[in-house]
């Protein structure tokens, strides 16, 4: 009995997790571990449990006559039913060129947007530290073509559209009146969004000297060697 309730809750949580993972493709596990994301999963799990409770109160059997299977049929319907209900819109309102759905989906959209903002804010600091650390010795002029090409080569299946977008961003950076340090950071940020922190770090480590900034020339020693 308790297993059915647990599975129904898990259904809801998994659907919520899939939504969050789709929003944060670079490091989905980090996004899922934040408090707002956990709250969103809990909300989806509770919706599924609520749906299961309603189904049981009204005694809907879904046409299944075997009593052993009826409970599981109710679990599946509750899991997917809550998902469909929460994401449904009853009607739409047009405001200018925008179409605004009215219904439970609107509420979920607002919740998801606030989760997204919170997760993004929380991860911005972490991302800044990581990028700064990974790209600290990288020379933008050496890396802006080689590093993305190598990362995309590692991934193998990055869509052409994403590659085109990235190419445009890099061309913009290459011509921008900014210091190479900031350009390197922006290159790292954009790459991290596409390939994730681990792939970026591995690529920087593998390319090593090819993209590393030249060390500053050694300062001339003030003491001169005695001339015998």
């Amino acid at each position, binding site marked *: 009995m308790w297993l059915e309730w647990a599975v129904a809750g898990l259904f809801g949580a998994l659907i919520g997790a899939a939504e969050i993972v789709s929003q944060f493709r670079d490091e989905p596990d980090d996004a899922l571990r934040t408090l707002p994301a956990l709250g969103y999963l809990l909300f989806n799990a509770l919706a599924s449990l609520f749906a299961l409770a309603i189904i049981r109160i009204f005694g809907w059997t879904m046409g299944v006559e075997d009593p052993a299977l009826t409970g599981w049929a109710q679990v599946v319907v509750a899991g997917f039913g809550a998902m469909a209900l929460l994401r449904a819109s009853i009607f739409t309102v047009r405001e200018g060129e925008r179409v605004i759905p009215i219904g439970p989906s609107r509420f979920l959209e607002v919740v998801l947007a606030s989760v997204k903002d919170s997760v993004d804010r929380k991860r911005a600091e972490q991302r800044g530290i990581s990028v700064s650390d990974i790209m600290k010795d990288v020379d933008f002029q050496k890396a802006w073509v080689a590093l993305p090409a190598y990362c995309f080569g590692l991934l193998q299946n990055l869509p052409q559209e994403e590659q*085109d*977008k*990235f*190419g*445009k*961003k890099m061309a*913009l950076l290459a*011509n921008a009146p900014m210091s190479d340090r900031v350009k390197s950071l*922006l290159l790292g940020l954009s790459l991290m969004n596409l390939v994730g922190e681990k792939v970026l770090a591995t690529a920087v480590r593998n390319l090593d000297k090819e993209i590393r900034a030249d060390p500053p020339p050694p300062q001339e020693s003030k003491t001169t060697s005695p001339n015998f």
Partner: protein
Amino acid sequence: MQKFAQSDDFGSFLWSVQQAVHQRKGQDTPMLIMHNLARQKKTPVAQMMTRVKVSWADFNDALKYLEEAGLVKMEEDENGSMLCLTEEGRHWAQTINGEWGEADEAENASGEERE
């Protein structure tokens, strides 16, 4: 040429960079728009155009480029067409703000000294 466009590893990236670098040489309107958006976040399109002080054709071209690069997006609200940053554009803006914020402060300080 076509073989780059059809590649699925990194050929599209190299092709796109090659094209874009040649097209955009000497054009800094997109970065001017990013600079303004980094401080304002959301700005009416007409206001942005008066701020960057370029021709309509150049402005439109730069806007299209930034949209294609996934850094800015257009939104409609009661004030008309608004220009705002995408999620990645916001990440760029945070970094650009640090760089250009210092440059702006230095410029303001030297202006005050001259006065």
